[in-house]
């Protein structure tokens, strides 16, 4: 009988201890709301995959202290404004959700930012559109706006390559890509480079034979392609097949910084120039570890969007940690901490991520070239 009483006492004590431990553990809930389907899935799905990996790693490492964890849900904005508005409205009504990482692309992100600012709910959208930032204090952007990134490429075109005219091929159905293309046109024209031609394709297009023939038979000193990596690789192949002079440099923005560009372009994409926040395979210890772990976990080589998602989650985690340290684990506290993040170690750009005084993200860019089937940083 004594033994039974002792056993029951021990069990009761253990149960009390266990429940008190659970009560002390804090969970910080966020929602990763990205375009898992629809036209921007090429960006959103990759960002979400990178973000989820980062969140899992941070929890495994006990980033928030013993027992505490970042709890996340992944949701799909479907590249659709109506679905996004509905989801953000619902999430804003859930007091446990501290922040939404998303939505993904320009117009959908802007629609999401509208609701978020109306409801005092922090959102970190993937887009680089400054309209989202200007929409109100609760909406942030994760990627650097064209004003920050494109000067790297425009200066390289005009000053390093010394081009006098350039053919432009852009995407006509994605605001973020259009913004990058327009900024590039504006900056090179300001440096005396004329536009030999300006053409647009849709994200789902794959037939560039007519366009390739047109450019291959025209005069220009360079060709700028502002499309996602796999589509750009396909376009470069068709340009080469149409007989484009191999000495004419082809340039692209940061979307090219994906292993898919080289995998799909093969020998055709040799010597192509690009800017990128992500050097595929990584260029320092942190980014190389990310590339290796991502490959091992998903079987896919990490591209720029995976790396952006991974980095974005590091920034969010640090913001939440700072809010906890300030004793203000509220939406307002997380928002304030997010805007104050500086020099957070990330796997993109120059290795650290900061928001400036205008809440514009800054992490730098590199000019690269495809050489012997690999991305190499161009020393300038």
């Amino acid at each position, binding site marked *: 009988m004594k033994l039974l009483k002792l056993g029951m006492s021990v069990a009761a004590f253990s149960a009390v201890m266990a429940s008190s431990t659970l009560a002390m553990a804090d969970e910080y809930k966020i929602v990763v709301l990205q375009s898992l389907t629809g036209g921007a899935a090429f960006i959103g799905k990759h960002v979400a995959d990178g973000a989820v990996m980062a969140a899992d790693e941070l929890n495994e490492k006990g980033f928030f202290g013993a027992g505490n964890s970042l709890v996340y849900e992944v949701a799909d904005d479907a590249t659709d404004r109506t679905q996004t508005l509905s989801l953000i409205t619902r999430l804003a009504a859930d007091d446990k959700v501290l922040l939404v990482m998303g939505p993904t692309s320009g117009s959908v992100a802007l629609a999401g930012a509208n609701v978020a600012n109306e409801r005092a709910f922090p959102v970190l959208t993937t887009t680089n559109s400054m309209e989202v930032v200007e929409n109100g204090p609760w909406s942030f952007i994760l990627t650097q706006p064209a004003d920050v990134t494109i000067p790297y490429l425009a200066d390289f075109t005009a000053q390093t390559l010394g081009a006098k005219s350039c053919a432009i091929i852009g995407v006509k159905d994605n605001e973020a890509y259009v913004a990058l293309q327009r900024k590039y046109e504006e900056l090179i024209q300001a440096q005396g480079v004329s536009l030999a031609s300006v053409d*647009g394709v*849709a994200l789902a297009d*794959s037939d560039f034979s007519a366009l390739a023939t*047109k450019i291959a038979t025209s005069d220009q000193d360079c060709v700028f392609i502002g499309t996602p990596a796999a589509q750009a690789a396909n376009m470069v192949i068709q340009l080469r097949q149409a007989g484009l002079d191999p000495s004419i440099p082809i340039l692209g923005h940061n979307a090219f910084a994906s292993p898919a560009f080289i995998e*799909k372009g093969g020998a055709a994409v040799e010597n192509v120039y690009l800017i990128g926040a992500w050097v595929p395979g990584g260029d320092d210890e942190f980014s190389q570890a990310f590339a290796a772990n991502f490959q091992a976990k998903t079987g896919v080589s990490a591209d720029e969007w995976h790396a952006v998602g991974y980095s974005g989650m590091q920034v969010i985690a640090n913001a939440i940690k700072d809010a906890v340290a300030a004793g203000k684990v509220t939406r307002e506290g997380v928002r304030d901490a997010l805007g104050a993040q500086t020099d957070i170690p990330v796997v993109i750009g120059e290795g650290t991520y900061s928001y400036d005084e205008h809440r514009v993200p800054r992490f730098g860019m590199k000019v690269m070239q495809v050489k012997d089937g690999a991305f190499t940083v161009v020393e300038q």
Partner: protein
Amino acid sequence: MLSQQILNGLVTGSVYALFSLGFTLIFGVQKLLNFAHGATFMAGAFIAYYCTISGMPFLLAIGLSMVATGVIGIVVDLVAFRPLRKRGNAEFPALVSSIGVDLVLISIAQQVSKTQVLNFPFGTFPVKFFNFLGLRISLLQIVILATVAVLVVLLIFYLKKTSFGRQVRAVATNERAAALLGVNVQSVFLQTFFIAGALAGLAGVLIGLLFNSMQFLMGEPYMLRAFVVVVIGGLGSVPGAIVASLMLGVMQSLTVAYLPSGLTDAIIFTLLFIVLLIRPNGLFGDANAVAGGTRQ
């Protein structure tokens, strides 16, 4: 450049023809718009791709892909159309139902491909170019033009000269009368969907090869253009679909070459409006033209 662009347009247009023939065949026989046709086209490319990378000889992969997309066509009929046909007045519900099947197939493809753009391994088809009268043409373009020409001739022969073709035209003309005369209408529908699916699948493989790119949304722009083709050519008209496809391919090439490429779709759809205003039944259609027959 003009002749080169016309050649480019003819190659693209010939693949549009392959794609559009199945679409117009189904419309001709059933008076239904099958919006799952684009996803069937995409499925053809995906199946051939996964067969090829698993080590299957490419020609066998194409054959298997055509059979598989033919079967997908049959499943589309059984799942999306037949239950609605039984209830009568199926046109609008069937359109919505086929969009549903389209979205299901696209979602599956997205999951399977992990949203990646796929391309056939280098060397799947020999990369060889010929220069002829100032034109630059690849071996693949020649093979595509020849394949499409042979298939179109075979399809027309099949519809015009075989017993099954007569049954198809009989059903297209008057389904009830054909049934009373002993034609197995359900069998005609299934065979039509199989042929349409197989043609769409082959078109998907050829586009995947020609432009080195396959992704889960690849069928959508082709679906829109097929719609333009069958309306311009005349709903249900096989010759109309062929001529309109080639016209569309050439026009697309020329607008890209000589006008800002952003205007291409605007020009194509403006042409659609003009044709509809001048010839509401399309260039080759009369009010009752259906798959080579005349609907009563």
